[in-house]
Structures are given as C-alpha cells and as structure tokens.
C-alpha cells in the first residue's frame, strides 16, 4: 500500500471502529477551560437532539465534568503525552473514557482507591464518599480521589481502569465509565466494560497518527459550529494557519451537511471528521455516505480542480464566483476550488462500498504550515 492508500484507510478504519456507536466524540490534545466547556456543550447538543432523558443527561454531565477536571489537573506540562477524552453512545448507554498521565509513584494509591470503590455497594459508596470528604483525604493536586468516587456513584459503580507504562516516571491512566438507564443499585453488566480495550487501541491509533481531534456522529450546522469553536480554541495564536484550517473545515463539514446522506432518520448526516498532524502538515479528513450515482460527477469535479495550476484555478474561481447558473441553497460550485487553492495541495479521496445504494466517501485535504 502506498502512503496515500494507508491514509485513506485511516479515515475508514477509524469510522469502522466507531461503527457500532450511535455517536462518538473523541478529543485528543491540550485541554483548556474553554475547550472543556465546548466539549460539554457539544455533548449537550447531541443529547438534546437524540431526546435523552433529563436523568441520564444529568449523570452524563456530572461524570463529564469530573473526568474533564481529572484530565486538566493531570496534564503533561510539555504537551508530549496529551490528554484524551471520549464519549460514546450506544443503544442508550453512554461510555466515557479519559486518559491522562499519572506518576508511577501514585499508581498504587489510585489503584487501591479504585479497588476499594469497586468493592463497595451503592450505600457503602455513599458513606465512603462522606467519610473521604470529612477526612479530607485529598491528593496533593486536590480532589482527585473524591472525583473518582463521585464518578463511581453516578455510574452505579460501572467503572474500569488500566495503567499503561510510558517510562520510568509516568504511565497513562485509562479510566472508563458506563452510564446506563438502569436503576441505581442494579448489577452492572460486565460486558459493557470490555470497551476499554477498544479505547486503548483507539488511543494508540490516534497517537501514532497524530490525530488531534476526532468527531464521529451526526453532522449538522449546530455540531459544525461547535467543532469550529473547538478548533479555533485549540489553534489560538497560530495566525494564518488557524484561519486556513478554519476555512477548509467549514467547506469540508458543510459538504457533509449538504451532500452527505442520512443513514437514519436522525437530524443530521452520519460521518466522521478528524485532523491529524504530520510534522508541519495539518491533514483534514472527512468520511461520509454518498449515493452511488454521485460518485462519477464527484470524481470528475475533484480531478478537474486537481489538474489545474495556480493561475488556472484562480481564473476558474473567478468565473464560478459570478456564474449564477449554479446558485441555489445546496451549492455555489466554489467549495472544491477553494479547498484546492487554500490548501495549495491536491485533494485526495477514496470510496468504500457499503451497499447497493450508497458508498462511504473519504476525503482528505492537506495544508503545510511552512508554506503559509
């Protein structure tokens, strides 16, 4: 396989790994207060759209808040081993996983705490929570122990964890919870917890490929704006690069919103979006369903803009800009030209067969920050 094929494979591979989930949203990178707020907001939008019950929403929120705090408190100051947050929704259950750095010296303490938490009944957990609160058995960073107990309480003790050594000083701490619509006190279903293995593999895949942010779910104008806000915050201070990435992202995501097809009756088109970095390159990727008969015209359009040189692109852009034969709510005819011009690279794409009606279309736009 050429590197090109492998990259096309990545979008599909990632999408495929989420296939069973109705929604998944993964953030990998630097966590700031603002980004944390936006992540919570995105989850809220999605839960509102799927009409989630108030009770489940409340539990998901409090677990998200606690877990995100754990990540921000235990971030790598050098930003080499970045934090990870994932929320997945599957058949009414929510799975929240965080990965953050932990000092090897602290593992024994955290593991002891988690073992204790898992051995307790809901009633005992409540008592234990109060006693920890009173004894002020807080870690030096403040509150982490209490946060874990709180998460366990809110998830009916549906928690699992894993430590993965990085070097002599640090390890990754994987912490996974499941929120089910079950009543409190019901026995958690152990099979749900197997998911942590998938997350471990996903985390490795994201790290290997330098994936910064990944969203798998329903694309509509609302989720698009939220993702843009997150990227703006993540790339704050990067000047022109931020603007170009923002620009490319808008066009790529609106392509999914306008030209993708619905895989269900839900409010938005199913798809995946992620950005990965390779040295000075920022690579934007999308994957979404299209109708089989849309394939040929799409290839023709992409190949045409790929065949043009800078000057020809400019002329073509100008003529399309004032061509009102293509002027409707669906398209302007400018999107692909803009992507090609702004990225200064050829547009890459691939198709994966799905069924008799539709295909999975993967699309990749690369921008080199050194060329800007």
């Amino acid at each position, binding site marked *: 396989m050429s590197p090109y094929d492998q990259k096309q494979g990545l979008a599909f591979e990632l999408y495929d790994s989420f296939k069973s989930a109705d929604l998944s949203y993964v953030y990998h990178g630097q966590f700031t207060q603002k980004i944390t707020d936006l992540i919570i907001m995105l989850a809220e939008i999605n839960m509102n759209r799927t009409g989630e019950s108030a009770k489940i929403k409340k539990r998901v929120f409090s677990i998200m808040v606690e877990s995100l705090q754990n990540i921000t408190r235990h971030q790598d100051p050098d930003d080499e081993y970045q934090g990870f947050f994932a929320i997945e929704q599957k058949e009414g259950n929510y799975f929240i996983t965080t990965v953050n750095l932990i000092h090897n010296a602290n593992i024994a303490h955290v593991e002891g705490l988690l073992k204790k938490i898992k051995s307790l009944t809901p009633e005992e957990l409540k008592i234990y929570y109060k006693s920890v609160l009173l004894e002020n058995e807080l870690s030096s960073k403040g509150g982490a122990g209490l946060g874990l107990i709180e998460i366990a309480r809110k998830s009916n003790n549906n928690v699992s964890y894993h430590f993965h050594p990085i070097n002599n000083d640090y390890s990754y701490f994987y912490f996974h919870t499941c929120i089910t619509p079950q009543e409190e006190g019901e026995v958690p279903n152990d099979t749900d917890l197997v998911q942590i293995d998938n997350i471990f593999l996903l985390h490795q895949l994201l790290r290997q490929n330098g994936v910064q942010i990944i969203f798998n779910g329903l694309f509509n104008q609302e989720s698009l704006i939220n993702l843009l806000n997150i990227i703006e915050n993540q790339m704050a201070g990067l000047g022109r690069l931020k603007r170009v990435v923002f*620009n490319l992202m808008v066009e790529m995501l609106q392509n999914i919103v306008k030209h993708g097809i619905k895989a269900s009756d839900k409010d938005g088109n199913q798809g995946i979006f992620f950005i990965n970095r390779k040295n000075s390159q920022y690579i934007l990727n999308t994957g979404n369903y299209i109708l089989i008969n849309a394939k040929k015209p799409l290839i023709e359009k992409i190949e045409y803009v790929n065949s043009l040189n800078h000057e020809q692109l400019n002329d073509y852009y100008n003529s399309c*800009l004032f061509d009102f034969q293509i002027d409707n709510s669906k398209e302007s005819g400018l999107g692909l030209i803009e992507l090609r011009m702004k990225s200064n690279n050829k547009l890459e794409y691939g198709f994966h067969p799905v069924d008799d009606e539709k295909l999975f279309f993967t699309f990749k736009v690369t921008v080199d920050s050194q060329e800007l």
Partner: protein
Amino acid sequence: MKPLIINAKEDTPKIVLDTDLDEFIISGRSLPEDAHDFYKPLFEWLLEYVKKPKPVTTFRFELEYYNTSSSKQLSKLFLILKEFPAKVRILWYYHHDDIDMLENGKRYAKLTGLDFTMISIPAVEDDSFEIVIN
C-alpha cells in the same frame, strides 16, 4: 424607508441597512448552511432602495470570515450595487494580517469595477484605522 436590521448570530453576520445612517453595514462571520436564503431579504431591500437611492451609498464590509456559499451571494450583492444609478463606495475592512480577506476584497474590486477602499484593522484595539487606497 424601513430599515433592515439583522442581528449577528454565530454563523451569520450583522446586517444594518438604514438610510438614516451614513453607511450600510455587513459585519461578522458568514457561514450559514443556506446563504442563498439568508441574503434574500437584503437583496429585496436593496432592489427597493435602488428606486430612490442617496446620491452616494457607502457600504461597509467588515467580515471576519465567510464561506464559499456566502461569497456567491456577495457577488450577487456587488452586481446589484454595480447597477445602481447613483454613486456607490465600498469600504472593505480586513484584519491587518488577514491577507486572504484583503485578497478577497481585491478580487471583487477587480471583477466588478466598483469603487473599493481597503481598510486594515490594527491588531491592538485602536480607533486609528490605516486607510490604503487600492
């Protein structure tokens, strides 16, 4: 004439078309899902205004960002302004280091032949805008 005022949203710009003011204004971000629909009221208003325009119409564009479907609607707007029976001035604002936005303004100036003034917005909050005549 009754003014047309649309407040900015996260994905749509602020629009102020008011004959009592010196300038017509479009400012902010424009990335609506349906730009065609969003700009419709603006065109309708202008087609009414053009029947009895002021001697000089100044139109201020202070866009931070717009998507390709909005750019098509801007083309349409400029073509309407191009047909005005009275004088039209375009003030095209861009963030001082946003060369893409400056280039966009130059492109429209070249393609429409309208009277554009490019105005750089300084980085620091400052009232003294540098005016560059193209």
